[in-house]
């Protein structure tokens, strides 16, 4: 299969890019792991907006026109496609239901979005502990809502899921937030931007009012957060207002921000830089989303966290530049079409500095206690990582010589940032100096059968199931 533009990910950035590219005359193949378009923010929107739009809210239903935009003859939407290798020349290898295939894109857009920032607290590996994003996905896709849940961490997403749970008739037992009054005061410095993004503020306040009216207890400046339980989550304990609290529950939803999903870009060795304000690594891209690999673009939260509306605009910009690059539109036409898109993007991003400062990550989860597991797959603790550092380990790839962090099936997706933070703190190096896991294909485990089903076998050793630090 061939296409002018191969888009990886059918979230807001990918969907908008596909539609814009098609308008400019490009043929598009969009690969996505889910059965239906939407990404995580608009997960299953084509089915669920009608059924649960009242619970999920208008911002969710805003994904409908984007999903509808994929219904065009020049867009091939491959669903249930797991991408496991991307070559710099535009060959993208993927599997659907255990059958491997390759699509060649003259240009490739990585629109793989965000992951929840890992929030390693004691007990976070227990069944019943999930990311807040997972809690939302359960509501969106499946209409499944947690009956006795506590939400813990920081950020507007916690308010959104709390409000949605209230509307579903099962309010959370408590909202345990880690940000403090000092963070709010510090954020006021960015009030100008926040006022330009006033719609987000109004929404946040109205969600908070909804949560308060439902009588959901709310704690702030919480510390010492831990999940108790033996075989599953039984309670959340924490300190707030100088007192220790223990709330019995069956489900804990954790969240302290989202970070770019770097796996695809890292596998291509695209350079990343530490962004201190967002406390995450961000790939280096130009204002069109172009990377240092001429054929490869990145748009949306994967290029830096901006949220769904910003991702949509960034996807359009990347598509316009891809069309210009392939001589379908002139630079003038590109710039004319891009001007309103850039203005909209600026508007969406205006509120970010305020939000980033008002809802910083939970500090104790960035430098977890020694006994806390940081690598969920291989069950490596924070203390183990500190031990490696004491033995002279300076970077995350070196840790693999000492233990197996990052070598399990998730390939470091939920431990990478923690491991780097711990090493940086121990060695006194910066985050950029400390670096990140070298990610190698396959990006997801792939079997020999999947390779055998393909006509063109990629050169990588199929037995390598994880990023292996070569």
């Amino acid at each position: 299969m061939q296409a002018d533009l191969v888009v990886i990910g059918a979230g807001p950035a990918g969907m908008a890019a596909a539609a814009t590219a098609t308008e400019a005359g490009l043929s598009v193949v969009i690969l996505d792991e889910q059965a239906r378009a939407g990404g995580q923010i608009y997960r299953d929107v084509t089915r669920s907006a009608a059924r649960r739009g009242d619970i999920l809210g208008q911002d969710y239903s805003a994904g409908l026109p984007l999903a509808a935009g994929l219904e065009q003859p020049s867009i091939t939407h491959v669903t249930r496609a797991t991408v496991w290798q991307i070559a710099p020349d535009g060959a993208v290898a993927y599997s659907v239901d255990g059958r491997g295939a390759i699509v060649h894109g003259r240009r490739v857009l990585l629109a793989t979005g965000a992951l929840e920032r890992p929030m390693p607290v004691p007990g976070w590996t227990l069944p019943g502990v999930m990311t807040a994003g997972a809690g939302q996905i359960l509501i969106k896709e499946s209409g499944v809502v947690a009956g006795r849940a506590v939400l813990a961490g920081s950020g507007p997403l916690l308010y959104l899921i709390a409000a949605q749970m209230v509307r579903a008739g099962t309010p959370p037992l408590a909202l345990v937030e880690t940000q403090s009054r000092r963070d709010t005061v510090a954020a006021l410095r960015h009030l100008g931007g926040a006022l330009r993004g006033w719609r987000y503020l109004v929404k946040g306040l109205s969600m908070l009012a909804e949560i308060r009216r439902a009588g959901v207890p709310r704690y702030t400046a919480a510390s010492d957060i831990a999940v108790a339980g033996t075989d599953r989550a039984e309670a959340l304990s924490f300190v707030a207002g100088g007192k220790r609290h223990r709330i019995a529950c069956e489900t804990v939803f954790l969240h302290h921000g989202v970070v770019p999903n770097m796996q695809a870009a890292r596998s291509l060795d695209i350079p990343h830089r530490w962004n201190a304000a967002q406390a995450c690594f961000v790939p280096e891209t130009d204002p069109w989303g172009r990377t240092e690999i001429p054929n490869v673009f990145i748009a949306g939260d994967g290029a830096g966290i901006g949220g769904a509306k910003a991702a949509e605009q960034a996807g359009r910009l990347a598509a316009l530049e891809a069309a210009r690059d392939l001589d379908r539109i002139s630079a003038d036409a590109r710039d004319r079409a891009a001007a309103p898109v850039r203005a909209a993007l600026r508007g969406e991003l205006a509120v970010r500095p305020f939000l980033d400062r008002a809802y910083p990550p939970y500090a104790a989860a960035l430098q977890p206690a020694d006994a806390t597991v940081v690598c969920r797959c291989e069950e490596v603790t924070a203390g183990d990582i500190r031990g490696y550092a004491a033995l002279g380990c300076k970077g995350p790839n070196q840790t693999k010589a000492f233990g197996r962090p990052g070598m399990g099936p998730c390939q470091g997706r939920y431990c990478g940032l923690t491991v780097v933070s711990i090493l940086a703190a121990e060695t006194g190096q910066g985050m950029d100096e400390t670096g990140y896991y070298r990610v190698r294909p396959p990006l997801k485990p792939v079997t020999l059968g999947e390779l055998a089903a393909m006509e063109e076998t990629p050169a990588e050793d199929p037995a390598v199931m994880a990023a292996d630090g070569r």
Partner: protein
Amino acid sequence: MKTASPFLEIDADAARVTVRLDGADLSLPAGANLAAALLAAGVPVFRHTPVSGAPRGPFCMMGACFDCLVEVDGVTRQACLLTVEEGLEIVRAGPATAESADAS
């Protein structure tokens, strides 16, 4: 097999089909996300880790964490990326058999 679930279904109107979980019949909504359906049916533990035998259940629901790995019709797969179909044979890795179910 069905136990009290910490999860509620908002619109439980889908036709139900029978799957087998560790050899026992379980009725789940047809076409539902398999991980979500198992959680709603009161199944919190999906596997035990190969390293320490600790119990695990779905964590991310978006195919990234691999904590929802179960064996479906003989192949180890992420339950959160699968759909409920009549007759699925689902086997969970117990503490003792954890090694054999390790995806690698």
